[in-house]
């Protein structure tokens, strides 16, 4: 029988993969055991580089390359921070790995730490995933008791401790340097880069920060090799992705499909399409921060480069489907108010700009504004973009700019109707 390459096997809901015995019976921890007992760290790093594994958190940075920025021969301790903050609206994929297949993540952590020479890993998990955090701690304890972690992992000289660290409700902490500040017990204010975390990270030490799904891909890469991984995706973007579909579809849910699957196929085949009588108005393809696509732009392939070429982003692969029933001013209002609530307040353009945008859109939605005010909204967005320490400012500006440029007539008509309704 061919071994399952999926992050979430089809029977993951029932199989109780959370238990070490079940995970091991399916070949779990064999990649880590083989690596620690018979492969060199450099060999693992080379394999991951060759696999074109790109970061699943949103930015899509090549994982192997990120690891190689850690300085060699530095005496300081090094850390791995696992980004399990999962705050991007429309994103719910890591929850399934953490909750249903935690040993896959732990095995990925072991491989990453072995490749880079790290002996302590912190999993920064969003505070609301309280039950999942408890399950994760149980899995870590089970793995440690079985000798997969601890002072002599798999009976070797390699030591590794893994800790779960709960966040407390702050979207900005999904940004890697805000995450580091938060992990150090401070407000989640992003740091100025450079220095990059690979050189000066957690506790001023070299630090790797990887997303949950990124790490969960490592066991299969190490086991089956880079070529097989690339074959499942694209040459510059290997493997499969966990595509989350939410909004106006018949079957919202998580779909594990090859990188490069067409957006239309995901929405209309896998997620069941729209409810009868509805038509597609817009799609946000990669979490709320990604620029919206129009209904005639969904033949795009869902990989980082194709979506960038289409003027959007694959991001966290959280797809939000908007049908013709939805008010686009309503969509704009949700987006604007979210970033206003979540701006950390450190950079003036973001702190002021996001709240100005939210107030403007709120007025327009309430019928108290004029269509021409959309120009002012566009001006605020362009004054935020590129003028902040971290990407939250861009994340607030880009979806609003895209909605304004692609749906201006529709938005103006709605604003007109809202004003008339009041008048």
């Amino acid at each position, binding site marked *: 029988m061919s071994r399952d390459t999926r992050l979430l096997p089809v029977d993951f809901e029932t199989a109780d993969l959370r238990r070490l015995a079940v995970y091991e019976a399916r070949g779990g921890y064999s990649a880590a055991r083989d690596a620690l007992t018979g492969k060199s760290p450099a060999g693992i790093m080379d394999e991951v580089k060759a696999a074109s594994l790109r970061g699943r958190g949103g930015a899509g940075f090549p994982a192997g390359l990120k690891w190689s920025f850690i300085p060699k021969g530095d005496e300081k*301790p090094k850390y791995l921070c696992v980004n399990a903050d*999962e*705050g*991007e*609206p*429309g*994103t*719910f994929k*890591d*929850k399934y790995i953490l909750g249903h297949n935690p040993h896959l993540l732990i095995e990925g952590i072991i491989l990453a730490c072995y490749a880079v020479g790290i002996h302590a890993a912190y999993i920064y998990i*969003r*505070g*609301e*995933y*309280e*039950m999942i955090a408890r399950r994760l701690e149980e899995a870590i304890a089970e793995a440690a008791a079985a000798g997969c972690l601890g002072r002599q992992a798999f009976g070797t000289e390699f030591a590794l401790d893994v*800790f779960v*660290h*709960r*966040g*407390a*409700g*702050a*979207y900005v902490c999904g940004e890697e340097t805000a995450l580091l500040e*938060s*992990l*150090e*017990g*401070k*407000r*989640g204010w992003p740091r100025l880069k450079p220095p990059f975390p690979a050189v000066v990270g957690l*506790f001023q030490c070299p630090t790797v920060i990887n997303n949950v799904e990124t790490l969960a891909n490592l066991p299969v890469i190490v086991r089956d090799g880079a070529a097989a991984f690339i074959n499942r995706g694209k040459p510059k973007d290997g493997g499969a992705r966990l595509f*989350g*579909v*939410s*909004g*106006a579809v018949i079957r*919202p*849910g*998580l779909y594990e499909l090859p990188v490069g699957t067409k957006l239309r196929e995901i929405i209309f085949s896998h997620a069941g399409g729209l409810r009868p009588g509805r038509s597609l108005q817009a799609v*946000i393809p990669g979490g*709320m921060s990604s620029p919206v696509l129009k209904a005639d732009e969904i033949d795009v392939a869902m990989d980082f480069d194709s979506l960038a070429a289409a003027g959007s982003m694959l991001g966290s692969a*959280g797809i*939000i*489907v*908007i049908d013709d029933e*939805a008010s686009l001013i*309503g*969509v704009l209002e*949700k*987006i604007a108010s*979210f970033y206003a*609530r*979540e701006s*950390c307040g450190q950079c003036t353009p973001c702190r002021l700009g996001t709240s100005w945008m939210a107030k403007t859109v709120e007025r327009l939605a309430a019928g108290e504004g004029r269509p021409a005010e959309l120009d002012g909204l566009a001006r605020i967005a362009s004054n935020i973009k590129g003028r902040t320490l971290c990407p939250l400012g861009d994340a607030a500006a880009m979806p609003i700019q895209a909605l304004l440029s692609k749906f201006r007539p529709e938005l103006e008509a709605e604003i007109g109707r809202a004003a008339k309704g009041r008048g």
Partner: protein
Amino acid sequence: MSAGLSDALKVRITGLSGRYPRKQAALLPVLHAVQEELGCVTVEAERDVAALLGIKPIQVREAVTFYTMFRRTPVGRYHLQVCDNLSCGLRGSGTVLARLCRKLGIAPGQTTPDGKFTLTTVECLGNCENAPCLMVNFDYHGNIDPDALDRILDGLA
């Protein structure tokens, strides 16, 4: 000093701070533990935590006021948080919130006079596939329609 931290909690805090090379790093996990025991993070608790972690009380206050999950006053026995973000909005979170306001007789941000329910909105909970969704204390509930909402409320003694 009013109700201080229990000895058991102090032991737990010491254990948590041992996971990090700097004790301050345990601040968020410690504040979660404090809130679990006291229901909120009081001014006295801020001072105690600061002393145990070797930092200034203002550094604790900064964290308490920055992170939305920490609160400085108690909430009702059941904290109902309705996701108000886009995916839930597209599937009727507005109706859920309105129904809760009507049934409980309170507006978002308020607590019922008997102290049983506090109602707030919350940003994306990462449960968009089950939109619209609601968190009751730490329990997730999804695909909320009027019947489901009534069942959930009836189940909360």
